């Protein structure tokens, strides 16, 4: 039996054990790093078992850029009712989605109107940190007219005086959805101009303020990060 076959057998066995209720998510993740195909997690995603679906979402989020390999499964996880599953599926979209995954990114963006505020703010994080090209690929897949309009607005934002003023004004808009897109825009601008995000961090709206404060910390943390981690500032507005 080849090393590949052994890895495949071990991976399949771990999927079986997860389906049987064993907590072996971490072992399966290690097996994927060793070569087991991430797309084989479809068995967990389609199992109808909450714990198996949670394991699939967590593993997808831990794969970083390799979550691209199971983006179809991630798309299904986005429709799962559990906060935990949606949260980690959104994270997998952030790291793994490409311009080929416009429909899945569109599904992720549409969760901005989810009743769960943790899910909504995870979407704002996705909007804050995804490359323009990825968000642009999602536009035509967003059915909700307002969300599609706001997404187009976000993609068009640049660090010009006019746009900065527009973003700052939108931070205190009466519509909560507009405010969420505005704080995402402020976060995207922060690598060039911190003023909108600093304004957001003193917002009268608690959720905007909390998100902005965390995002300011996040942006600052890249200033001292090693060079190979500095991806965000170079791609979010391109």
């Amino acid at each position, binding site marked *: 039996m080849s090393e590949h076959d052994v890895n495949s057998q071990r991976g399949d066995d771990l999927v079986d054990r997860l389906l049987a209720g064993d907590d072996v998510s971490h072992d399966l993740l290690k097996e994927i790093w060793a070569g087991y195909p991430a797309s084989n997690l479809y068995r967990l995603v389609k199992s109808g078992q909450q714990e198996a679906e949670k394991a699939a979402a967590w593993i997808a989020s831990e794969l970083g850029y390799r979550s691209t390999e199971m983006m179809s499964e991630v798309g299904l996880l986005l429709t799962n009712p559990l906060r935990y599953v949606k949260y980690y599926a959104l*994270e997998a979209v952030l790291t793994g989605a490409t311009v080929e995954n416009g429909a899945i990114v569109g599904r992720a963006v549409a969760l901005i109107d989810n009743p769960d505020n943790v899910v909504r703010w995870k979407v704002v994080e996705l909007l804050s*940190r995804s490359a323009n090209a990825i968000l642009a690929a999602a536009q035509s897949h967003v059915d909700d007219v307002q969300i599609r309009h706001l997404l187009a607005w976000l993609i068009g934002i640049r660090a010009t005086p006019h746009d900065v003023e527009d973003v700052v004004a939108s931070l205190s808009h009466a519509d909560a959805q507009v405010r969420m897109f505005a704080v995402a825009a402020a976060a995207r601008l922060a690598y060039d101009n911190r003023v909108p995000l600093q304004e957001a961090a003193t917002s009268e709206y608690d959720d905007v303020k909390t998100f902005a404060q965390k995002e300011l910390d996040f942006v600052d943390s890249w200033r001292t990060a090693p060079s190979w981690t500095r991806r965000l500032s170079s791609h979010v507005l391109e």
Partner: protein
Amino acid sequence: MFNARDKTPVPGRDETGKVHGDLPGHVPGSWTKQDLEDAAGELAKSIERRVDESLQLGEDGPHRRQIELERGLLTQILKKLSGS
């Protein structure tokens, strides 16, 4: 995310603010002092993010184990940096 060098990759965060990848179980001898300092900073921020997530999503076995792995590596790195 890992940097592309011809040695054991040094952990670095990605867009999620966390370190992802197959972490080494011990500090690789090939890492320079700068690598150790970089890895320590990245792991510390990743752990902070993961702990924050635990508060939002509740206690979770796999996530807790990942935090333990990152803390374990960070502790080894700090020991190496301190010369002990």
